[in-house]
C-alpha cells in the first residue's frame, strides 16, 4: 500500500462473470446494464434516479466550488440522458469505456459510487480515479474497464480502436466505447482513429455528445456539416443522430448499436443532440457567447424533468415517489460528501510514486 493511502490495483468491484452491479444501490429490477433484458418499470425508475443523482452530484460540486472547497468544476448538466442512456446499454467490466470530462452520468451508471465522485471532486488521496493527481472528472476505473483519461481531447479515439483490437485478438466480444464532444471531433485523431477502426472493422462506438458548443464556439465554427454523424460514411460506417435529451430514445438506439457492433457490424457513430445548461466550467461565463433565450428553450427540454414527466404520465412514477427520490438523492450526496471529507488529502511525499513499474530512481512504484 502506497503512502498516500491508496491500496493499488488490482481491485475488483464487479465480478466479470456477473455483470449485475451490486454497488448500485437502487437496482431493484433485473440488471439494467445487461442488454438482453427488457426494461421493467423498476429499471425505468432506476434510470430516472441515475439522471437525478448525476444532476445532484454536479450541482453539489458547483456549491463546493463557491464555498472554496473545490478549485475547479466541469460538469454536464443537461446531458445526463445522453450519458445514462448510452452507458446503460454497456456491460460494465467487459466493454471498454472511454468517457469524457462531462460524463458523471456514464460513470454513475457503470458503477462509480457517489462517495467516489465526492472523493474525486475534493481530490482526496483515496479518489479512485487519480488520487488527486488529475483534475476531477478525469475518470479511471480498471475493474469497470474505464481507461484513465487525459484532458487532451481526441486521443481517446485511436486508443479505443486499440482496445477493441486487443479484445478481438484475445477472442473477447467486448465493444470499445469512446465519448466525445462535437467540438473535439475536429481533431486529427478523430480521422485517424476512426479510419484505423474502420479499415479493420473493429468493434468501436463513438458517442458524440453534441451540446452545440466547444467552450464559447458554436457548432458552425467547428464544422461545415450539420451532424458529426454525417462524417460516418467517410469511414464506411453507420452514423445515427438521436435526440440526446430523450432517455429512452438514447437507450434504445445505443442498445441496438452495441448489439450490432458486438456481432461484428463494425464501428459506428451515435450522435446525441443535447445542451449543457451550465457554463463550460467554473472558469467560464456563458453569457458572453449565448443568449438566455436559447438557454431557456433548452431548459424546457431538460432530460431529468422530461423523463420524470413521462414516467408520471405513463403511471410508472407518482409525484410523491419522485419527491421522495429527490430527497433521497440529496441525502445520498450529502452523506457521501460527509464521508469523503474525512478522507485523507494526498501525501506530497508520494509525488514521485508510480513513474515506472520499477523505478530507476526516487519513489516506490
Amino acid at each position, binding site marked *: 500500500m502506497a503512502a498516500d493511502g491508496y491500496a493499488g490495483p488490482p481491485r475488483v468491484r464487479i465480478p466479470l462473470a456477473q455483470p449485475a452491479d451490486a454497488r448500485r444501490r437502487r437496482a431493484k429490477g433485473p440488471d439494467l446494464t445487461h442488454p438482453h433484458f427488457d426494461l421493467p418499470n423498476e429499471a425505468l425508475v432506476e434510470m430516472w434516479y441515475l439522471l437525478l443523482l448525476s444532476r445532484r452530484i454536479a450541482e453539489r460540486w458547483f456549491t463546493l466550488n463557491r464555498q472554496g472547497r473545490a478549485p475547479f468544476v466541469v460538469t454536464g448538466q443537461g446531458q445526463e440522458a445522453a450519458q445514462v442512456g448510452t452507458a446503460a446499454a454497456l456491460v460494465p467490466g467487459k466493454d471498454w469505456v472511454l468517457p469524457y470530462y462531462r460524463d458523471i452520468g456514464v460513470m454513475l451508471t457503470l458503477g462509480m459510487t457517489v462517495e467516489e465522485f465526492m472523493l474525486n471532486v475534493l481530490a482526496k488521496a483515496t479518489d479512485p480515479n487519480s488520487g488527486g493527481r*488529475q483534475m476531477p472528472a478525469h475518470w479511471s476505473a480498471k475493474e469497470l474497464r474505464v481507461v484513465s483519461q487525459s*484532458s487532451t481531447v481526441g486521443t481517446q479515439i485511436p486508443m479505443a480502436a486499440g482496445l477493441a483490437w486487443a479484445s478481438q485478438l484475445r477472442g473477447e466480444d467486448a465493444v470499445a466505447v469512446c465519448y466525445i464532444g462535437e467540438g473535439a471531433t*475536429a*481533431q486529427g485523431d478523430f480521422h485517424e482513429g476512426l479510419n484505423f477502426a474502420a479499415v479493420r472493422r473493429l468493434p468501436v462506438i463513438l458517442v458524440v455528445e453534441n451540446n452545440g458548443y466547444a467552450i*464559447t464556439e458554436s457548432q458552425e*465554427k*467547428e464544422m461545415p456539416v450539420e451532424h458529426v454523424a454525417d462524417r460516418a460514411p467517410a469511414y464506411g460506417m453507420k452514423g445515427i443522430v438521436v435526440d440526446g435529451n430523450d432517455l429512452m430514445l438514447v437507450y434504445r438506439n445505443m442498445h441496438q448499436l452495441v448489439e450490432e457492433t458486438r456481432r461484428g457490424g463494425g464501428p459506428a457513430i451515435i450522435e446525441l443532440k443535447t445542451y449543457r445548461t451550465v457554463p463550460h466550467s467554473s472558469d467560464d461565463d456563458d453569457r458572453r457567447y449565448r443568449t438566455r433565450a436559447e438557454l431557456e428553450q433548452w431548459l424546457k427540454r431538460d432530460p431529468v424533468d422530461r423523463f420524470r414527466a413521462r414516467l408520471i404520465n405513463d403511471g410508472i412514477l407518482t409525484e410523491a415517489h419522485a419527491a421522495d427520490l429527490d430527497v433521497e438523492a440529496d441525502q445520498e450526496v450529502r452523506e457521501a460528501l460527509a464521508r469523503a471529507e474525512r478522507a485523507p488529502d494526498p501525501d506530497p511525499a508520494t509525488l514521485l510514486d508510480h513513474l515506472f513499474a520499477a523505478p530507476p530512481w526516487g519513489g516506490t512504484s
Partner: protein
Amino acid sequence: MSEQTMAEALRDGLRDLLAADERVIVLGEDVEAGGVFRITEGLLDEFGERRIFDTPLAESGFTGAAIGAALGGMRPIVEIQFVDFILPAVNQLISEAAKMRWRSRGEWQVPLVVRTPWGGGVHGGLYHSQSFEALFAHVPGLKVVAPATPADAKALLHAAVADPDPVIFLEHKRTYRLIRGEVPDPLPAVGIGEAALQRDGGDVTLISYGLMLHECLAAAETLAAEGIECHVLDLRTIAPLDQAALLDAARHTGKVVIVHEDHLSGGVGGEVAALIAEHAFDHLDGPITRVAGPDVPAMGYHAKLEAAFMPDAARIAEAVRGLAAY
C-alpha cells in the same frame, strides 16, 4: 507610465500590433470571446471577424493554416489555449515552420507567433500546468521567449511579431494576474535573445525565467538579509540563449544556481549548465547547481501535490546557501 498586470500588458500589446499592421491577425480557440484567460478580450469588437478568428478545435490544422497564412504574407498570431495542447501541432511547428527558411535558403519565411500560457500554480493538474520550453528550445529555426514582467511581455510581443521567423511566445499563466509592473510609454525595445540582469550581487548567480524569476528575487531578498548577495539573471529568451550574458553572470560570482519550474532532466537548465561548464570553467568556484521540478509527468491537481512539485523561494535559498558555503 502605468502599472499593469501581465494580462493587461499583453492585451494592450495585441491591440497596438493589430492597429499598426493590417497583416496581423489573431486566431485560435475561443479568441473571439476573449479566450479562456481573456487576453484577447475586446479585440473582436475593435478589429472585426476578419482579423480575430475562432478556429475549429484542431491545433495541427489551425497552426498549419497559420503557417500557410504567414507564407502568404500575413503576420498571424496563434493562441494555443494551454501549452499542453500544443503537442498535436508539434509536427507543423518542427517539420514546417522551423525548417522552411533553411530548406528554401531564405526563399520562404514563416513570420508566425504562437502565444500560449504555460506553467503551474493554478490547480491545473497534468494538462494545464506543463512547461514545454525545452522541447522547442531544442529546435533550430524556432525562437522561444518567456517574459517574466509586464514590460518585457509587451516589448517582446512587439519583437516577436516584427520578427520574420517563427516565435514561440510563452506566457506563464500564474503571472497573468499575479505579476504587476510598470509598463513605460514609450516602451523601450527588447530584442529577442537578450537576457536582463534583475539584481546585482557578488556571491551567487541565479539564472531563471518566467514565474521562477520572481521566486529567485524573493529568495535573493531573504538571502540578502543573511548577508548573501545574489546576482539574478532573467533569461527572457530561451532560444537562442544570450550566451554572453549568461557566461558573464556566471563568471561574476563563480557560483551558479539555475532555476526552472520545468522538471529537471533534459530541461533548459542542462543546456545553460553545459555552456557554463564549457565556456566559463576557469571561473567556477563550485558545482553548477540546478533547482527544478522533479522528474514526474506533471504537477498534481491537489494543492499539496502542486506545491510539492513547484520550486519556490525557500528551496532556492537553500540551494544558494549550500553553494555560498562551498
